[in-house]
């Protein structure tokens, strides 16, 4: 094993020069951080929009903003959070930073394509936000179902389509790069089954991106023809079919859920073994379950359309396929529990967020299996039950993992530790806020509150206020995090090369790493999870 040399001061300063982060850098670490910071900026915008929605819902009547604006805000909130925050961060940021380390490479397979992929995101985001000032943003939800998307705010809808096309293109370029890097850039002697689990997660995710995103792109191009050129692909008034759009849209957008959670599964698999001082339990089954999720994830889309007029055989098929995703997903969760069992667990913030992820995702997974059942779904489809369910998955799941990853990898990237008490405060505020915000929404849905409404039955006011209080807590929780990230960059304890005593290759170099990742030859790590005492007597 190569020991890392003390970091070369000039080299480190060169690496940290802030101007590099605003330019067309081809360094995978710079690009990873560009994705991360850009993603967080959009996260705060999307969060502010969510705050506006929860403020409107404090009262049963529509009184905080005009109804059209409410629909613009809910459309922007969903679009920004999915396409500009979670997908770019959990794939682009961590993928670009970590994958070259994990395969023992100096950079990604196509560094310039990588930079192009990132630089498509800021213009796409600005374009999307600009639509608000160019005659109004899209009001048809992030799903943009026709005919509603054909009849409201045409300019905003076309800008929305252009923006999502750009973001989809960025995602496809990124996926090509991840597949090529994992398959072709591995250090000689490093076998596929010796890779850290995040590589497998990104391989699976990238396959999903490559198979499904082009379908969304084609669909949105046709939708834009319907708006601009008055064609009738999805317009029933011109002989088109509105349900076909839903099939095509969900053919991408259900896999998109796995594009958001599979990388998170990979990141948790990196974090838990380090802090539990135990090997990742069941490496091989973890790999197979990722690939099973990829396959099943492609054949479940119509469970979003159980009330759209789908024939019984289709309902039967998609119920069974969706239910069975619980099996490979369950395997992963049991393996993480087994990784914790008998470990020597450090209860730091990274572990707390990882375990928070397990708890939240299990809750969202259980409601997900219930939603997969046709008769169950027919009552709660398009209600707040679904809103609660998917926020448990994407926020309680993926966003918790993003925060866990921040606490885990910040020392490597910055060279200083994040503050632990502030981190614990951040965790508990977020955890309580999330559950207060989204758990009551399940009850709202079961009892008759549909989603995407600016006004509702007065009997639901108290529970909505409870939910809004949770949202406020989540907003407050970002303060200790922001203070921590900024303060620790200057005053945090010096991390050293490997503060966690981790074995994966990114820790076997200086913190922050030099431009070409290692000062000498890339280390060959055959056992990325070789923690723990081989025999009890050896202690």
């Amino acid at each position, binding site marked *: 094993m190569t020991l890392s040399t003390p970091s070369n001061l000039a080299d480190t300063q060169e690496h940290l020069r802030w101007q590099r982060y605003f330019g067309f850098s081809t360094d995978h670490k710079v690009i990873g951080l560009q994705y991360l910071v850009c993603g967080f900026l959009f996260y705060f915008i999307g969060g502010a929009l969510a705050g506006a929605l929860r403020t409107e819902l404090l009262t049963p009547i529509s009184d905080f903003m005009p109804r059209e604006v409410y629909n613009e805000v809910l459309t922007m909130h969903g679009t920004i959070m999915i396409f500009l925050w979670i997908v770019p961060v959990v794939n682009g940021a961590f993928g670009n930073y970590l994958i070259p380390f994990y395969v023992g490479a100096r950079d990604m397979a196509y560094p310039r394509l990588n930079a192009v992929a990132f630089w498509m995101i800021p213009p796409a985001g600005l374009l999307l936000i600009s639509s608000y000032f160019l005659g109004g943003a899209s009001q048809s939800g992030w799903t943009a179902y026709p005919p509603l998307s054909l009849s409201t705010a045409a300019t905003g809808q076309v800008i929305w389509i252009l923006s999502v096309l750009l973001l989809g293109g960025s995602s496809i370029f990124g996926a090509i790069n991840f597949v090529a890097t994992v398959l072709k850039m591995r250090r000689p002697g490093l076998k596929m089954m010796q890779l850290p689990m995040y590589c497998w997660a990104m391989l699976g995710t990238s396959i999903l991106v490559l198979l499904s995103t082009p379908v969304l792109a084609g669909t949105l191009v046709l939708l834009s023809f319907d708006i601009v050129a008055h064609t009738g692909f999805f317009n029933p008034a011109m002989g088109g079919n509105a349900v076909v759009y839903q099939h095509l849209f969900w053919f991408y957008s259900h896999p998109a859920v796995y594009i958001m959670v599979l990388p998170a599964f990979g990141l948790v698999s990196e974090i838990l073994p380090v802090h539990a001082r135990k090997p990742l339990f069941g490496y091989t089954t973890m790999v197979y379950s990722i690939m099973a999720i990829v396959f099943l994830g492609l054949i479940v889309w119509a469970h979003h359309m159980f*009330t759209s007029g789908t024939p019984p055989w289709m309902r039967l098929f998609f119920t069974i396929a969706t239910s069975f995703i619980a*099996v490979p997903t369950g395997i992963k969760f049991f393996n993480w529990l087994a990784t914790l069992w*008998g470990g020597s667990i450090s209860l730091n913030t990274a572990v707390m967020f990882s375990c928070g992820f*397990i708890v939240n995702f299990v809750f969202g997974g259980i409601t997900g299996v219930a939603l997969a059942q046709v008769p169950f779904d027919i009552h709660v489809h398009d209600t707040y039950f679904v809103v609660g369910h998917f926020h448990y998955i994407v926020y309680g799941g993926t966003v918790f993992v993003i925060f866990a990853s921040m606490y885990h990898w910040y020392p490597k990237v910055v060279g200083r530790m994040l503050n632990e008490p502030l981190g614990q405060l951040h965790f508990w505020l977020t955890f309580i806020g999330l559950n207060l915000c989204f758990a009551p929404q399940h009850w709202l849905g079961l009892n008759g509150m549909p989603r995407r409404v600016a006004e509702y039955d007065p009997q639901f006011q108290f529970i909505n206020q409870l939910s809004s209080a949770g949202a406020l807590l989540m907003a407050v929780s970002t303060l200790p995090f922001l203070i921590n990230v900024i303060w620790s960059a200057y005053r945090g304890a010096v991390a050293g090369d490997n503060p966690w005593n981790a074995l994966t290759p990114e820790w076997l170099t200086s913190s922050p790493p030099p431009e070409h990742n290692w000062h000498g030859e890339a280390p060959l790590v055959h056992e990325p999870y070789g923690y723990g005492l081989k025999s009890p007597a050896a202690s």
Partner: protein
Amino acid sequence: MGTLQLTPRIITLFIGIALVLVGLWVGQNVNLLPVDASVNAPLYDQLFKVLFSIGTTLFIGIVGMVVYSLMRFRRRSGTVTEGAAVEGNLPLEILWTAIPAVVVLFVGIYSFDIYDRMGGMVPMHDHSMAGMETMHEPEASGPGQKTWAGISSVSVEGQPPVAAVPIEVTAMQFAFIFRYPEADIISGELHVPAGQPVSLRMTANDVIHAFWVPEFRLKQDIIPGQPTLLSFTATRPGSYPIVCAELCGAYHGGMRSTVIVEPPEEFANWVAKNSPVKATPASATLIS
């Protein structure tokens, strides 16, 4: 020695049994649903209780495992100790693949039994059962056409099947309009007789809407260009909200109506009072 080795297993067994009992108790006793007012609502509630029991057991079990592990295997800060180098355990992996597979299979089969009892698997006819009309085959648009999907409703158990009351529903931004073709009534509220099947034929004028009555546990999208069908049998007299559940524009949240479930004779009176068609054979069959 033998008893010592068995103790953790016995404890695990007891914890497992206790978890299942807690799950069953919660599922049976915690009511999260509104009042049931249609024939298929109690069926839905039965499925909900089963899913709620299984979900509660799993959730408490897994959260318990996480919390227990964090407390039991916690490393004191400042100390450097390693866990056990256990990389896997094949029998365990097989176990936690097989058990979820069996649970999921049970849930799938059980929910399809429920779906079947709700009438979802019945090949359906226009104006009698639920589903989406095939618009592409003109020869299939006559009476007796087979349509599929949506969800339909069975008759009240123990009573002979009754002819369904046909009602035409038109959804538009931002209202529902109900037309009773046999009695020639147009209404903004939906009046239905308790205990008699009702068959809705729904069309949308502009964008996609959805017809949802939470107390009936039924929802069906109303799609422009493709009429959809929905049948149900209301059971409990009263007024219940009809809610549009598909984003349909600025006033989507205000797109609501009311369904009034009445005893058959009151419904007949309502029809008689509002119908311009006086005592025709058609209205007679309607109120029978």
